[in-house]
Structures are given as C-alpha cells and as structure tokens.
C-alpha cells in the first residue's frame, strides 16, 4: 500500500532518488560553464567526450562485473598488454629491434586484439566462476601478469611507427564527430541492450541480487560469469585499441590505475558495490563527471596539487549526496 503511494506520487524526492547523479552532473556543468566560458563550446564538448571514451568503455564492462558482486582490477594492465600487441601488429614496417613485429592488415590486427581481450577476460571469469577464487584476487592476478607480459613483450619499450589507417581509429572523425565518440556510443548501446533487454542481462542482475536464488531458478551462474568477464575483456580491448590509435603508440606503461578510474565512474554512476544494481546510461554519466572535472580544472588552470584534492573530494561528495538522496527518496 505505502509502496504504491510512493510510486504514484511524482515527488521531488522520488525524482532525485533516481536522477540525483544527473542533477549533480548538470550542476557541475553549469558551474564550470560559468567559470570557464569555453567549457560549453562544441569543440570542448567533443573534446571531453573523446577523452572520457577510453575510461568510459572500460567502466561499462566493470559495471557488469560489479553488478554480479564482482570487480575487475585487471583492466588497466590489460589495456597495456593489448596496446602493445595491437601496436606490434599495426606498424608500417617490420621493426627488427622488437621481439615481435608483424605487418598485417589492420582489420586482422584489430580482430586479434579484440580476441585477446575476450580470452583474457574469459580467464578472469573462469578463475572466478570455476576456480572459486574471489574476483578481486583473480583479476588482481591478471593485473600483475598482464602488466608483466606487456613489458616482456616489448622489453619495456613503447611501440611506435603505426599505420595511418590504424591511427585513424583514434584521430579521425565521421560527420565532424571524432571516431572514439562513435565507438563509445556504439559500445554504450550494445552494453545497454545486453544488460537491460536480454536474458543474459537478467541473469547478471539475478546473480548479483542473490546467487543462490539464481542457481535455484536454473541460471547457469558459472557460464554467465565467464561471459560477464569475457565481455569486460572485450570492452577493455576496444579501449586499448582506441588509446593506442589516439596516441600513435603502444606502451607497457599505459593504463596505469585506469581500473580505479573505471571503478570510480561505475560507482559514481550508482552501481552498488554490493551487487544487483546498476545501469549503463548512469555509468556513462559517472564517467562524464570524472571527465568534466579533469577538463574543467585544466581549463581553469587549477594548480596540479589542488586538482587531485578537488577531484577526490568531489567524487566522494557526489556519491555521498546521491546516497543520501536515495535514502530520503
């Protein structure tokens, strides 16, 4: 009875409980646009979204993992490994100084890299689902191994001299909008449909809500988990390819602590670390909040030391406000 009352009454509280983080995001944008006149220029907006796309795509995979009460700590290191792999496969010419250097068509290089991401993700998932290792540990292991493998693969050096057809993925535009934004959008739609419109998505929520109950309902928990981490690996690979193309090089030092930014975006976007709750559009908003913060502070020339403090405070404050609104609503 009381629940129906809340549902039927379109109160401010109910609105805030659902869209609190969007309100915070809009508020942040208004403040920044007042403080920096160029903030809302079309060029800067595409600039921000392009910068966000890399973490944004990773964080959508992390959202899946967190909804199942899991986590993915390996994304940053996997970006490093996949970036050097795709770079060595996309060079203009063979480089005899590198342990591995193969010239091949870009489409194949990209396909191999995506496959590598899926495989590494599936390893995470298999360790978690069948090995019964907590995902924190399984992905922590992958984080360490992938970083080491990336350094080993290139002897710790960056890989440059990439084909222009490849760097176009990160630097080109279609209809005046940078390609990374299109890819971010496409991945967002794909992830959103998977999560909210398919049986797989329902299983993901069911596992996060109550794994035992999901099992009793006949959901193959193990198989679903492997798929979740494989999908996260796939998205990580997409990010790695974008990053490599955008910077015209692969580097084993890339992606350092990206996993934390991705987790932060996810959590700011309202995904509960205790599982069962989360959505892709809100995850995008979460990533945008971090991106807008970085961008705004650079635009205003905020001192580097203060930037870090401000970023940390604003992230925690955003989640705090959101959490309180939810309680009240």
């Amino acid at each position, binding site marked *: 009875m009381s629940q129906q009352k809340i549902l039927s009454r379109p109160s401010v509280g109910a609105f805030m409980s659902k869209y609190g983080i969007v309100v915070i995001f809009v508020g942040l944008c208004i403040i920044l646009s007042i403080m*920096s*006149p*160029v903030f809302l*220029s079309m*060029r*800067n907006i595409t*600039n921000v979204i392009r*910068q966000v796309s*890399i973490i944004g795509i990773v964080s959508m995979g992390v959202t899946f993992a967190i909804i199942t009460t899991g986590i993915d700590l390996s994304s940053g290191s996997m970006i490093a490994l996949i970036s050097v792999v795709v770079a060595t496969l996309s060079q203009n010419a063979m480089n005899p100084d590198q342990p591995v250097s193969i010239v091949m068509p870009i489409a194949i290089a990209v396909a191999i890299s995506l496959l590598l991401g899926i495989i590494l993700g599936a390893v995470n998932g298999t360790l978690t689902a069948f090995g019964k290792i907590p995902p924190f540990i399984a992905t922590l292991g992958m984080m360490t191994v992938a*970083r*080491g493998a*990336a*350094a080993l693969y290139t*002897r*710790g*050096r*960056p890989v*440059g*001299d990439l084909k222009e057809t490849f760097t176009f993925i990160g*630097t080109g535009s279609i209809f005046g909008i940078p390609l990374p934004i299109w890819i971010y959008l496409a991945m967002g739609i794909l992830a959103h449909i998977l999560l909210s419109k398919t049986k797989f998505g329902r299983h993901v929520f069911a596992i996060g809500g109550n794994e035992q109950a999901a099992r009793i309902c006949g959901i193959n928990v193990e198989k679903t988990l492997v798929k979740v981490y494989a999908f996260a690996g796939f998205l990580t690979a997409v990010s790695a390819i974008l*990053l490599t193309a*955008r*910077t*015209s*090089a692969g*580097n*084993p*030092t*890339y992606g*350092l602590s990206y996993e934390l930014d991705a987790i932060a975006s996810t959590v700011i976007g309202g995904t509960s670390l205790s599982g069962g709750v989360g959505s892709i559009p809100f995850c995008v908003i979460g990533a945008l909040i971090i991106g807008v913060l*970085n*961008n705004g502070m*650079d*635009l*205003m*020339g905020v*001192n*580097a*030391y203060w*930037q*870090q403090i401000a970023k940390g405070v604003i992230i925690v404050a955003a989640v705090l406000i959101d959490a309180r609104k939810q309680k009240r609503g």
Partner: protein
Amino acid sequence: MKKTVLVLVAMCMLILPTAIFANGQQEDGKILIGAAMSSFSDKGQTYLQDGVREFDAENDDVEVLMTDAKDDAAVQLNQIETLLVKGVDAIFIVPVDISALKPVFKKCKEDGVKVVIGNRMPAEELWGEFDVYTGSESIQAGILQAEWVAEAMQPEGGKVGIIMGPLGHEAARMRTEGNKQIFAKYDNIEIVMDAEGKWDRAKGMQIAENWIQSGANLDAVLCNNDEMAIGALLAAEGANLADDAIIIAGVDATPDALEYLGAGLDVTVFQNMNAQGYNGAIAAYKLAKGESVEKWDWIPFETVTPENMSEYK
C-alpha cells in the same frame, strides 16, 4: 631424530656457501656486483640497464646480478638484502625511494660492501651513506630546456604551461624547478598553467587538449619528459595548430621523441642513461677491487634540437 638431523644438514648446506663466499670473491674468482634496478618496465631505465649489461659483457672477471624492484621501494629493500646474502662485493643501486634504503646502507657498511647510487640524486642528508653517485642533476634538465625555450620566445615573450611528472617525484620536481628558475629571469614570460601528466603520453595529450581549448593561447608547453611532450604535440596536431604556433619541449631524447623532433617537437634534453649505467657498473667494479673512485660522477645533460639530432639517433 632422523628428521632433525636431516633438517640441520639441509640448513648447513644452505648456509655454508653463503658463509664461505660472503666476503670477497666468488667460487670461480669472479667479482660479484649487485645491480638493484628500479624498474625493468620503465623505458628510460632500460637504457641504463643496457649500459650495465654492456659493461658485464665486456668484462670477463665480473658477474652482475641484476634485480627489478618494479618501482616498489619495499621490494627493492628485500632484493638488496638478498644480494647482500649472496655475497656481492659492491652494489649499484638505482633507488626507488632512497630514504627507504637506510637499513641496507647500514648493513652494507657492516659487510664492507661498497655502494654506488645511480640516476636518482639522493637528498643531502644521505650523502654520507654511499661511496659514489653517478648520474645527472635533474634540475639541469629543466634549466637547459627552459633556457632554449625562453630564447626561442624572445623578443615577444609570452605564456607557458608546464606538464609535470608524478607530483613528489624528484625528477619531476627538480625539472619543474629548473624551468621556474629560468623563467623567473624573464619579465615577459609567465607560467600560467601547470598540471600533472604522470609521465604518460595519453595524460599529457589530455592536458594539452584542455589547455588549447581553454583559450589561454599558450606560446610554449614544457613537459618533464618526452612521452608527455609527444602527447602535447599530438594534441596540437589534433587541434590543427600550426607547428610554429606553439613551442613544445620534452626531456629524455627517446628514439620516439627524435622521430617527432622538428615535426611538432621543438627541443628535448638528452640524459645519457646508457653512460649512467655503464659508469655506475665501472664504479662498483673499481670499488670492489679496492681502487679509489671520485665520489661524484656527473653525466651532463645535452640540449637536442633538429639541428644536432643526428648525433643522438
């Protein structure tokens, strides 16, 4: 009973070799040198390590044991302790965080193991703890970089931004300090922006993109390393800024940066990492043999521009 004996015998077998070879020479008469490196995956450091390996390959009477601390001070501490147990005669350390190494310095003194510090300049209160320092003064890189940029900006002067390495990192701090010292001498140059690029190309690119968007109209961007400078020049390219509209400066003269020098990148500063590694190994070798070595072995920085870049390729 049997078990206890077995365990005792096993322990003796483990301890015996280290006890015998702990001080002085190895079994086959070779001098044993420990090289405790900060990170095998830091590209700049790999050139230093190559210098050490070169020395090792050239000298038959030396064996170099190299360790990778993965940029973790605690790991490095453990590795140096292990090297001491293995009985090295001298040790060449590229410290992750030198203040964390105080306990091993004491142990080195007790064991009579000579200590060479490389690449990263220890703070003054630690100068008594080691025998030789081989490296460059980080502030010099910042000074050379800013001197070149300041001259190139004359007579108009203008506004500059500095993209720094990780905050609190000695090289990042001192290179930035060097920049500031030089620009303080010019009335017509103002530092209007600074941000932390964490040595990372993508991060440097992001910062430079935002600065270009901000309408600050920077005349020069100085970066604490080349990777961030490449990021900055890619950002300028992406924004269709003409090459001569903005001066971009890096440090390190990495092979990648040399590719971009004259094509977006205007100047970089060469730190001879290879020589640092090679000289560090020589110093350790000489000390182990009981020869005396100058305490300060300065490897100078060199300004690299498109005009003289062929010497560094």
